């Protein structure tokens, strides 16, 4: 049996559900096809940050601003708190070299309208009294926020369903064809077929494989991120935290940073957020290990050792669970959003790596605008999937 819709969304993570929700809101009949169950992929194994300070000034930072505004309106629209909170964030600086890079970065971000500053050691310790002595300064932005990914996904799906959106689990897509009428015919492993004039590939780390089904190139690598979750504990400091080391290596790849071999191999960076349930999420690793999404003793141990070296009181805290998810990583660190030039009606919305929670609402909204109105912002050109198609031509 073939079921007909206006749009088929492949992938039921936070990006796919956001796309589905905003498309449905614009009056489209949508089905979201998820290969696993609810929150089975990276969206169910990640932290909860809506970070500004980690975004390079440019399109990512601009979209993060817009996404934050959407989150605020979604709290009313989806009739749920969504675990939305605004604790602010600090990037911890260990030495003069990091300070130099961060000062420059903060200046750039300020020129883009981000409320962020460098704190002296004394001001930093006032907000974070339990930090290890070695940190010489930090940044601080009151804008950094968070949302609970499970709540966001659940409410996107609930509200979407109320408006007629379908979400089908355990339905891996195994075939995509374009038939004579110009519609797409998508086949799942259960041999169910879905027909629609538009397909949205929101398959995260699997987006490359989905694109492959119709002969398109989306270079996407799974990057494993491991995170540990603590028991409920009294608050440690006022804000969420992460390390400058990670940002500095991301911003200035040439700069010499003291990292151990293990840190390099695991892509270890410090990130700590307090959840709505008073546990802490502490991360994380960034590893290229294919589609293996197991947690490892090496990864967990490294995260714990790092966390205790940042905040010594954590040595007396139990961790209750470890999670790992496959972040979808693109070669240029930017997400893929737009229609493929070769196959009209086929869109990709994936490749957010660590920014999926931050950028989910704006991604869904922009995608829905593209599909429904056929228009695309000029500023989104740099996110187009066609940037890889032209690269491929140059290479060959």
């Amino acid at each position, binding site marked *: 049996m073939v079921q007909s819709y206006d749009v088929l969304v492949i992938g039921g993570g936070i990006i796919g559900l956001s796309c589905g929700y905003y498309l449905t809101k614009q009056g489209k009949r949508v089905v979201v096809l998820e290969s696993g169950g609810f929150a089975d992929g990276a969206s169910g194994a990640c932290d909860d940050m809506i970070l500004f300070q980690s975004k390079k000034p440019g399109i990512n930072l601009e979209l993060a601003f817009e996404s934050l505004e959407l989150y605020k309106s979604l709290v009313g629209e989806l009739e749920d708190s969504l675990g939305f909170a605004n604790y602010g964030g600090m990037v911890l600086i260990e030495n003069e070299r990091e300070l130099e890079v961060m000062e420059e970065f903060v200046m750039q971000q300020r020129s883009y309208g981000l409320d962020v500053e460098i704190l002296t050691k004394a001001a930093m310790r006032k907000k974070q009294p*339990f930090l290890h002595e070695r940190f010489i300064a930090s940044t601080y932005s009151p804008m950094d926020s968070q949302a609970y990914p499970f709540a966001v996904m659940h409410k996107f799906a609930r509200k979407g369903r109320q408006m007629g959106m379908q979400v089908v689990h355990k339905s891996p897509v195994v075939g995509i064809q374009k038939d004579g009428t110009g519609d797409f015919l998508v086949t799942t492993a259960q041999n169910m077929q879905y027909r629609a004039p538009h397909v949205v590939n929101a398959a995260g780390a699997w987006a490359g494989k989905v694109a492959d089904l119709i002969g398109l190139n989306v270079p996407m690598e799974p990057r494993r991120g491991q995170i540990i979750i603590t028991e409920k504990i*009294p608050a440690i400091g006022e804000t969420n935290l992460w390390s400058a080391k990670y940002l500095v290596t991301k911003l200035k790849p040439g700069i010499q940073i003291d990292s151990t071999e293990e840190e390099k191999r695991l892509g270890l960076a410090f990130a700590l957020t307090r959840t709505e349930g008073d546990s802490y999420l502490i991360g994380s690793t960034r590893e290229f290990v294919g589609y293996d999404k197991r947690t490892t003793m090496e990864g967990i141990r490294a995260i714990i050792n790092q966390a205790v070296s940042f905040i010594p009181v954590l040595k*007396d805290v139990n961790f209750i669970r470890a999670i790992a998810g496959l972040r979808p990583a693109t070669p240029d660190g930017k997400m893929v959003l737009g229609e493929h030039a070769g196959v009209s009606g086929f869109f990709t919305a994936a490749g957010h790596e660590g920014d999926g929670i931050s950028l989910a609402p704006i991604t869904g909204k922009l995608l829905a605008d593209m599909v429904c109105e056929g228009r695309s912002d000029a500023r989104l050109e740099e996110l187009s999937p066609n940037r890889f198609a032209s690269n491929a031509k140059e290479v060959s």
Partner: protein
Amino acid sequence: MQRIIEHPVLGPLPEVPMVKIIVDGEQMEAREGEMIAAALIATGKKYFRKTIKTHEPRGIYCGIGRCTDCVMTVNGIPNVRTCITPVEEGMVIETQMGYGVWKQEQ
């Protein structure tokens, strides 16, 4: 003191050295090697913490380190499971309110 001095199976309570502990600011004695929870029950202490939302009193429940109902702040560390943590000389034990608070390390 509430202790079983003569147990029908285990026999008489053996003599062991005593240690001094401080419970909510008050000095008390405990048998060396026993768990904090056992020492507190022996002194007649009825509750170890108050719950986070409704501030109800809680004491020992599972007694084997699983349920975390008996947690207290011990030597400044919140959420210590008293049923599986042995007493030590000079240990400072406090009734915990909610999650407790971190004592600043200087």
